[in-house]
């Protein structure tokens, strides 16, 4: 009898403790308000919006202003939560996995991976909502974006309307080009850079002729199935064969050239472990590097470095999955108000007043208008300095001082000229080969940067890397990718 009671008492104490603890660390989830859409006298809905970027001081102030506007238009208010660049991927992983309340969230090929998370069920499928509430989006955004960002045939997010194709360029430090009267007109291939690099190496020993960090990959005319992984398909679409990029002749000869440049001292000795080249661009001690461009990018670069930068193309303008998925806003699978969220996204992508408020803040506080198109930042703008690319349709934005009036027309022209990659819209599903992918990823990390920056000799390291990839299960991954690609090609014929 007494024993039983003792046990009961213990159990009781344990349960009490547990429940105290549970409520202590669990937080309260039962505040969910009534859902449903509608307008008029109904209580406005609060939409929670997670986006990328360094948290800004004035976010709440601006969002209060934004909410006044959206409440009037669609009876919704906006609560924006910013997560810093470096933390976004990881924090969102946790927030989404733990079911944190959210309605709208930023995703892209690079940060909180769009395709993977769409497949894992993090985002709401938008096909129906887009038809119902997103007509404005369909009319405004380049159709290439919406079709290119489909995952397994469905839309899971609204891409930001901006530059559509990916165009690689060689960037030149114009000061040095002018000083030594270098001829950049015939430059396009990696090999064609040699005379320029040589001149600068001889005449300016303090300068790093070829600037690059550890993420550098020589351009070859292939499109990668997964960003930063070696599986790729030829861009001319001639064979639709998935290959290991390291086994292609193009990459092999590019790596030989890179190693030649490295040995000649054109490349910084620590390139394979260097995270950023901002010290070079700040000091101006570089001759050339490679970058992705967009219309008027030279002006941006020249302005931010404080000296002129010129470019020549290094590739064709290609529309790829990565370029299409550069910035997407998705609706969370656990959103309480998916219809309202869609209405908001539609408004954000079509309404210049709202879009510019989100981007530049409050007129008179953060910026002032110079004329109908152009604005000037005021001092307070440093408390609301937002990344434009992640916040929806770019082509509604006011122009900065000095931008040409036809800036967005140039973008439209640039977009129209892009060629679609043969695998645009095909997204490899690696779930079946997840084990092999982990091993392949590790092999890639091991060899990639040192090969790509020319640090090691491809004659010995390339066969070694290919062999390691094979041992890690590369063939199985490629076979799986090939069968998925074949099925996709058949379905899209």
């Amino acid at each position: 009898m007494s024993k039983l009671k003792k046990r009961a008492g213990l159990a009781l104490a344990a349960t009490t403790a547990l429940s105290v603890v549970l409520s202590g660390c669990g937080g309260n989830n039962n505040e969910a308000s009534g859902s449903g859409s509608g307008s008029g006298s109904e209580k406005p809905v609060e939409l929670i919006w997670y986006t990328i970027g360094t948290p800004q001081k004035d976010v709440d102030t601006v969002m209060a202003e934004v909410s006044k506007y959206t409440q009037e238009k669609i009876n919704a208010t906006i609560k924006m939560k910013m997560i810093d660049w470096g933390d976004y991927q990881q924090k969102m992983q946790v927030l989404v996995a733990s079911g944190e309340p959210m309605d709208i969230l930023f995703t892209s090929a690079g940060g909180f991976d769009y395709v993977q998370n769409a497949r894992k069920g993090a985002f709401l499928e938008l096909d129906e909502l887009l038809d119902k509430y997103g007509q404005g989006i369909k009319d405004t955004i380049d159709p290439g974006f919406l079709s290119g960002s489909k995952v397994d045939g469905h839309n899971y997010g609204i891409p930001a309307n901006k530059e559509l194709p990916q165009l690689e360029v060689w960037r030149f430090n114009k000061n040095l080009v002018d000083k030594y009267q270098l001829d950049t007109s015939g430059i396009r291939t990696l090999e064609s850079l040699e005379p320029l690099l040589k001149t600068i190496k001889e005449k300016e020993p303090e300068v790093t002729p070829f600037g690059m960090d550890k993420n550098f990959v020589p351009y070859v005319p292939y499109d990668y199935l997964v960003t930063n992984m070696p599986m790729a398909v030829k861009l001319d679409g001639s064979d639709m064969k998935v290959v290991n990029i390291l086994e292609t002749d193009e990459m092999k000869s590019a790596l030989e050239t890179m190693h030649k440049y490295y040995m000649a001292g054109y490349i910084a000795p620590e390139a394979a472990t260097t995270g950023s080249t901002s010290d070079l661009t700040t000091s101006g001690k570089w001759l050339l590097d490679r970058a992705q461009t967009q219309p008027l990018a030279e002006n941006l670069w020249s302005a931010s470095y404080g000296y002129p930068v010129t470019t020549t193309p290094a590739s064709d303008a290609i529309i790829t999955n990565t370029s299409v998925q550069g910035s997407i806003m998705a609706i969370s699978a656990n959103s309480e108000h998916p219809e309202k969220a869609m209405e908001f996204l539609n408004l954000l992508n079509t309404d210049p007043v709202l879009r510019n408020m989100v981007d530049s803040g409050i007129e008179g506080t953060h910026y002032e208008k110079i004329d109908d198109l152009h604005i000037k930042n005021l001092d307070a703008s440093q408390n609301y300095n937002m990344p434009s690319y992640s916040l929806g349709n770019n082509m509604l934005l006011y122009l900065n001082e000095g931008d040409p009036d036809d800036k967005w027309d140039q973008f439209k022209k640039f977009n129209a000229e892009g060629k679609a990659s043969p695998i645009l819209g095909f997204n490899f599903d690696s779930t079946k080969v997840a084990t092999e992918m982990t091993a392949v990823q590790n092999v890639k990390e091991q060899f990639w940067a040192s090969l790509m920056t020319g640090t090691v000799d491809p004659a010995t390291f390339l066969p070694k890397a290919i062999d390691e990839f094979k041992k890690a299960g590369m063939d199985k991954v490629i076979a799986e990718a090939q069968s998925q690609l074949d099925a996709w090609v058949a379905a899209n014929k």
Partner: protein
Amino acid sequence: MAGSFFRRFNRNKVLLLMVLPGAVWFLCFSYLPLVGTIAAFKEYRFSRHGFWYSLVHSKNVGWDNFKFLFNTDAAFTITRNTLLYNIAFIFLGLVFSVGLAILLSELVNKKLAKLYQTSMFLPYFLSWVIVGYFAFSFLSMDRGLLNHILGYFGVDSMQWYSDPTYWPYILIFVYLWKSIGYSSVVYLASILGIDRSLYEAAMIDGASKLQQVRNITLPLLKPIIIIMTLLAVGKIFYADFGLFYNVPRDSGTLYSVTNVIDTYVYRGLKTTGEIGMSTAAGLYQSVVGFVLVMVSNYVVRRIDKDSALF
């Protein structure tokens, strides 16, 4: 009797209250998350009904999530690296921190002793990212201090970040530099707790300093040494991610000697973000650690019952 539990509870109220914060902490962060290990056997997919619903309703995949840890060539390398480094850390860390604690305790000038202690303590508070940059300022190919010194003696510059030869020593050195200041505090505290009259008696008997250390300090330190070592053994399958990732600057050519379980899991899963697989890796590490602690505690108990943890 019936109320005996409550009577005992009442009597120890104050003590129990003092235990409460710690107990709550463990419950929150160690026991409750145990339920989450189910994820190791699931192909985790999000659903709109929150974490628990998603967890329970995700597809069961048995042991599939563990495969990536074992079925490649890398499995041997990472397990070997993790184990050997940790063994070196435990052993050398013990020797150096106990040695340091004894030296500090013997210093007559207490102000100087505090100064030494504090300056050796300081690196413990630096993050690995910063320590990584310290190391880089020594090992950089073109601007590193070490290559300058080598050049002074007419030796060619070394490509430190692409030559694995010296990295086992570099990593062990950096680890010891960062950690012994902290771990020696524990030993120093227990040395200071030793009854001084033991030393006085020894001195009267004519024991030298070395004899005092060997016959008084070390035997009295033995229990704490065993406890600290047992605790470290439990973590032998966990590598210090910051050390192995930041100090070698994630240089691929060094992986043969710097890739450990934690970095392997990070590199393999950072793009796919499969929760199931990372949980599997964590579970594997804990289970092996648990077994090792039980075994070594058993061994200790067989040899010296009083020193065992439990």
